[in-house]
């Protein structure tokens, strides 16, 4: 069994009715215009016959996925299969499709986030739209990196907020609540190493995808001292902009608030940042020290765990971590080398996708949000990311495992959680279940995640 990686991805954006190219991102070598035209043409041909062309696979392992949003913009993602020569059963197409469809969904949402839905749906001037779309590139490029496994976050795929569990959550939560209120907002979020360390209740009530995209946006802005960024909320407020204020408290620790016209960036920075955050600066440093492991020191993972992803299904939060390989020497010199850290992130993403498309479908956005009139009125927008395969089951699978030639994977589902685990090949397959259940209880007991 191979877990196939989505190769380099190229993203094309065209106007849906006239096929005018709006932008292309990704892959250094751009597709020739004639191919872009054909890709658009074949979709249009299908539409003329009353067929919606969703995706296809080339005989060399490449994959193309189409989707039209709001009858105005067409996004096409083209991926070159990296392990094309190894070939694979048709069963593998699920993962690639799922990732690519998520990508298209996220890219559209990110365009709405930056430009607002009106500007994308009622296009008055294509040249102006092209220019305005440039503001989305930074975020789109980050999403593309994510699909190619170059990011150590999973939110774009899981649509669950990537979290970091702080050592002293109560103190930080209190500071955040106070700060958010003083900034005349109810939506506040503290991010450490690009993950959510604390957020207000209202922040968690944003649509999961919005939480994920706002985190991604905050990551693209990291480095500067403060920002004032106009944002639309793809689900909650697609046509009225809010302001995302972001302040870098310490290197790697940022606080964000979503607010209306006031306060000004100047005022929030000079009057509020110091007042609320100076007293907890030591707690912030402590949280920074948690590092990319995302788990406080009190949580110990078994030594035979390579990587783990835990999802809280109710709150749509996730915590994930990949152990550094150096702390993890291969037990036997003759056994195959352990996958690198980057590869572990890729494998974790692939295993999540594998399980999510086959066994553990993640609940999509609650219907109350998804069925807002005018937003999801189009049949295409409500398409399911699940495979038909899942629908054939009479029962809900609770556990699954997979042995690849790089690692072993185990998935576990309970009423509240989903756990995805990677172990080295040296762990006997029969022991995987106990490793997984032990890890789940260690993670949930310690922090009540």
């Amino acid at each position, binding site marked *: 069994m191979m877990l196939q990686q989505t190769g380099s991805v190229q993203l094309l954006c065209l106007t849906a009715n006239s096929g005018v190219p709006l932008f292309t991102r990704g892959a250094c070598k751009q597709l020739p215009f004639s191919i872009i035209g054909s890709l658009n043409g074949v979709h249009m041909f299908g539409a003329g016959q009353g067929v919606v062309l969703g995706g296809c696979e080339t005989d060399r392992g490449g994959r193309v996925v189409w989707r039209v949003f709001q009858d105005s913009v067409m996004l096409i993602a083209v991926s070159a299969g990296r392990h094309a020569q190894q070939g694979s059963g048709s069963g593998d197409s699920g993962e690639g499709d799922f990732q690519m469809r998520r990508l298209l969904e996220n890219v559209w949402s990110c365009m709405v986030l930056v430009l607002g839905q009106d500007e994308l749906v009622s296009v008055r001037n294509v040249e102006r739209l092209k*220019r305005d779309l440039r503001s989305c590139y930074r975020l789109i490029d980050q999403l593309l990196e994510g699909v190619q496994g170059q990011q150590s976050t999973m939110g774009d795929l899981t649509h669950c907020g990537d979290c970091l569990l702080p050592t002293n959550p109560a103190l930080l939560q209190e500071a955040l609540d106070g700060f958010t209120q003083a900034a005349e907002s109810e939506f506040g979020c503290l991010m450490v190493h690009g993950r959510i360390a604390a957020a207000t209740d209202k922040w968690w009530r944003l649509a999961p995808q919005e939480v994920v995209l706002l985190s991604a946006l905050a990551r693209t*802005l990291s*480095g*500067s001292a403060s920002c004032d*960024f*106009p944002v639309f909320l793809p689900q909650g407020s697609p046509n009225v902009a809010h302001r995302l204020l972001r302040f870098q408290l310490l290197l790697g620790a940022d606080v964000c608030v979503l607010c209306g016209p006031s306060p000004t960036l*100047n005022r929030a920075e000079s009057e509020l940042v*110091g007042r609320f955050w100076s007293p907890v600066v030591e707690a912030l440093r402590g949280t920074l020290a948690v590092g990319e492991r995302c788990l406080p020191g009190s949580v110990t993972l078994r030594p035979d765990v390579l990587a783990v992803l835990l999802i809280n299904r109710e709150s749509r939060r996730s915590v994930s971590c990949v152990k550094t390989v150096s702390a993890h020497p291969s037990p036997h010199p003759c056994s195959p080398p352990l996958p690198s850290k980057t590869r572990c992130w890729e494998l974790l993403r692939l295993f999540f996708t594998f399980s999510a498309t086959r066994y553990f479908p993640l609940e999509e956005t609650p219907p109350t949000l998804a069925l807002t009139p005018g937003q999801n009125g189009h049949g295409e927008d409500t398409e399911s990311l699940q495979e038909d395969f899942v629908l054939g089951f009479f029962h809900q699978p609770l556990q699954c495992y997979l042995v690849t030639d790089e690692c072993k994977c185990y998935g576990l589902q309970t009423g509240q959680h989903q756990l995805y685990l990677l172990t080295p090949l040296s762990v006997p397959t029969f022991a995987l279940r106990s490793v997984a259940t032990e890890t789940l209880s260690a993670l949930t007991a310690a922090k009540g995640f």
Partner: protein
Amino acid sequence: MAQILDPGSIVVDDWHRSADSREFFSRILHKKKRRNFGLLEAPVMPPNVSVDTVHYKIFISGKSGVGKSVLAARLTGLKIPNMHYETTGIETSVVYWPVKLRESGRVLFFRLQLWDCGENALRRFDHLLPVGLEYHKLAHPYNNKMALNCTDSVILEKIYLIPIFLCVFQSCKEQVDAILFLFSFTDRVSFDDLTNQIARGTELCDRVVKLVVGTKFDLFTHTDVTEREVTRFQEVSGLPVFRMGGDVTNASNLGEVAPLLNCLAEHLWHQDCVAAMAPAIPTHPESAVYMKSTV
């Protein structure tokens, strides 16, 4: 118009090269790179050395793509992105720069907060502003023509957006101490527009330090602006002009940014002294420090 000071007349020129500055400059470096400070952080000196920090707000002005964000990254010593991304909204960054005053020998940390505004992004929302709002013109240095072409129905439709973006503009102009006017050596239009740009910027606030920075100076093969023109502009406008560009070979090599930062510090300090002592000539520059928040 403010007086142009010769380099080294108030602060010690090239101080970063002298041995006695090492203790101070080491506080803004970390592992041979510039240290990036969060808002809750500042350079920490040993307890026996007390150094005051003076805060200033610097607005970076220039058309889209001229290199505002790159200049900000260069001055703060952050990694310069290898691709041009449009700035949407406002991004600020902080530079700490130690300066030694010539007369008193006193050392100060200048905390310069650079304000970088994505012009296109603001313009996108700019047209939503009703025509004839004078305060809008004041609030935003780029008074653009699109507002005039805007139909009334669009204005009415979008009127709810106004407060948010007015507030963004106001945020930029509130208490600005200096403006860096940018032009690009590879873009003739940006150079020709400098005079207008400066006029608009000055209308914004009266008491402000003005410097001109030419970006992409390294791309001399594509240059659109000759050296003679720049010299002439400098003579006519009476503003200091700096040239920036090229790869940063070594972030801890402060030589590239030192002339600009020293010049900025010098003029800011002078401006404060003049304001504190007006109309008399400053005799005790130290007293001016109390005008600004000292840390």
